[in-house]
């Protein structure tokens, strides 16, 4: 039975999660519920374990302990059904790879193609089922990249690359969207466009979860905020969680860690967003 969050359904339910890299704890005792159909921002300093949390949710990293459920079922079931879309950071992608914008976005459809009969899968996707091509077309339209569909991904600007990655997540038509810093390093028009697209996804009833450092954007748009720095440092409404006092507290929260981790944290910086 799926749990509820107040009066809304819980999309992702993380219980008692621990994760580590090379025996260095990155996430400890994480108990988190992401409300369905809402837009959640995950905020924390660099090295706080935000991306690690996403790696656990997408299955590319194994947790030491704990469980993750989506709509009351193991999250793997939902991954296999293509319900969970993931947008990586720009640095995680090999931009030299010889694929076009269209082919990259079509990658978001590969999960769904497993449900197509085998003989069809041996043909180019566009021919055998128009719905894949249509989904890609609509996703590219949404991020205003249709004109560049044939361009190799290596020839795109920074903001365009972000938009292509977003289009790939949209093309999947998943009901949970995980976005790792979708707004990092993009120009203001791209940022506006990305926020608008995500707002529309939320209006369509999808659960949007993003890691972000963009406080003004988060304050304006999201419904729910999670503060994280190895432990959960706060969960609640944006105006409460993103208050200057709360963010300052989060920024110094690393002092509560053991001396052992201090060196690693010094390298990272976290600036409380101005205005």
């Amino acid at each position, binding site marked *: 039975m799926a749990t509820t969050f107040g009066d809304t359904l819980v999309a992702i339910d993380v219980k008692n999660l621990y994760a580590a890299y090379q025996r260095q704890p990155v996430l400890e005792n994480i108990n988190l519920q992401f409300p369905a159909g809402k837009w959640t921002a995950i905020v924390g300093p660099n090295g706080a374990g935000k991306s690690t949390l996403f*790696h656990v949710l*997408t*299955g*590319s990293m194994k947790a030491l302990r704990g469980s993750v459920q989506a709509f009351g079922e193991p999250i*793997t079931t939902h*991954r*296999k*059904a*293509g319900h*969970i*879309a*993931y947008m*990586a950071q720009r640095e*995680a*992608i*090999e931009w030299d*790879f*010889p*694929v*076009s914008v269209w*082919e*990259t976005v079509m*990658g978001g459809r*590969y*999960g769904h*193609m497993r449900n197509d009969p085998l003989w069809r*899968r*041996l043909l180019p996707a566009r021919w055998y089922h128009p719905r894949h091509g249509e989904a890609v077309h609509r996703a590219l339209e949404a991020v205003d990249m249709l004109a560049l569909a044939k361009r*190799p991904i*290596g*020839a795109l600007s920074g903001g365009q690359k972000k938009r292509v990655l977003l289009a*790939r997540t949209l093309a*999947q038509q998943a009901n949970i969207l*995980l976005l790792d810093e979708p707004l990092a390093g993009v120009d203001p028009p791209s940022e506006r466009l990305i926020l608008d697209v995500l707002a529309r996804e939320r209006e369509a009833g999808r659960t949007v979860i993003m890691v972000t450092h963009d406080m003004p954007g988060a304050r304006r748009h999201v419904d729910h905020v999670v503060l994280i720095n190895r432990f959960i440092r706060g969960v609640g409404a944006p105006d409460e969680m993103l208050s200057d006092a709360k963010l300052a507290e989060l920024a110094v929260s690393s002092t509560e860690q053991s001396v052992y981790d201090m060196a690693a944290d010094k390298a990272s910086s976290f600036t409380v967003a101005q205005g």
Partner: protein
Amino acid sequence: MAELMATLGLFGDALVSGLIAAIMVIVNLFPASISDAFQYAFMQRALLTSVLVGAICGILSCYVVLKRWSLLGDAISHAVLPGVAIAYLLGWPFFIGAFITGALTSVGIGAIERHTRIKSDAAMGLMFTGAFALGIVIISKIASSTHLMHILFGNVLGVQQSALLLTLVASVIALLVVWLAYRPLLLYAFDPQQAQALGFNTSVIHYGLILLLTLTIVASLETVGIILVVAMLITPGATAHLLTDRFKTMMLISVGVGVSSAVIGLWLSVVLDVASGGTIVLVATSCFFIALLFSPKHGVVMRQWRRWRMG
């Protein structure tokens, strides 16, 4: 069972004869000065083997280059040696032994990388040289040094019908797998984390690709040998990568480079009376340098030309 094998053998022989006949039709279009060399049965077998090896190495090399697996390919090719030796001792098909030691080595490399502070290049270096040394020791005990030379550097002119059949089967399997698993393989090579998020079993894809690599290496054993096969697994893909920004085109160019360098190299080695494996690799390397200089988009010449025109 024996009957089935005999039937399959007959079928294989017929298929080989058919393929050779088809290739000879093309060869005979060339002037006699070139086609004369291919009138002997051993040359025809060598030619067909070279074409097959050039083709599957060309396909696999796209993945090797894009996935940055060049060193891993080198490691697996060396690690195959003890497997081949043990299989020879036990009278098994080469492929089984080769696959076992190749896979064990790649698993070992992964384990050292994950559980110790040793980095991946050192892990690969120490694992494959160890396996290679074991292979050399076993072979020195059971076979002559010419035999060892043939495994290490290939002996395409001495390819037997059985080895040719093995290469043929390996090529067909590799081709089928790449066709059937085209999308998962592409996605895994491009963005493994995305593949994982979409619910693909990435460890199956990972070890599947390693299995394909091993299969290709074993298939190339007789042609270029396990030392030079690494070149055939890197050079065609690297050449193609300089020439296109489309994955399918890259595969076609890579296969083209693989097949043409295998055929031209074979012919040159006979005409010049030099080692075939080495000649094949040198032709492939020449293709790479030509692409490096003259590629329309990423070539040195065109880049200089553009700079000159701009400035």
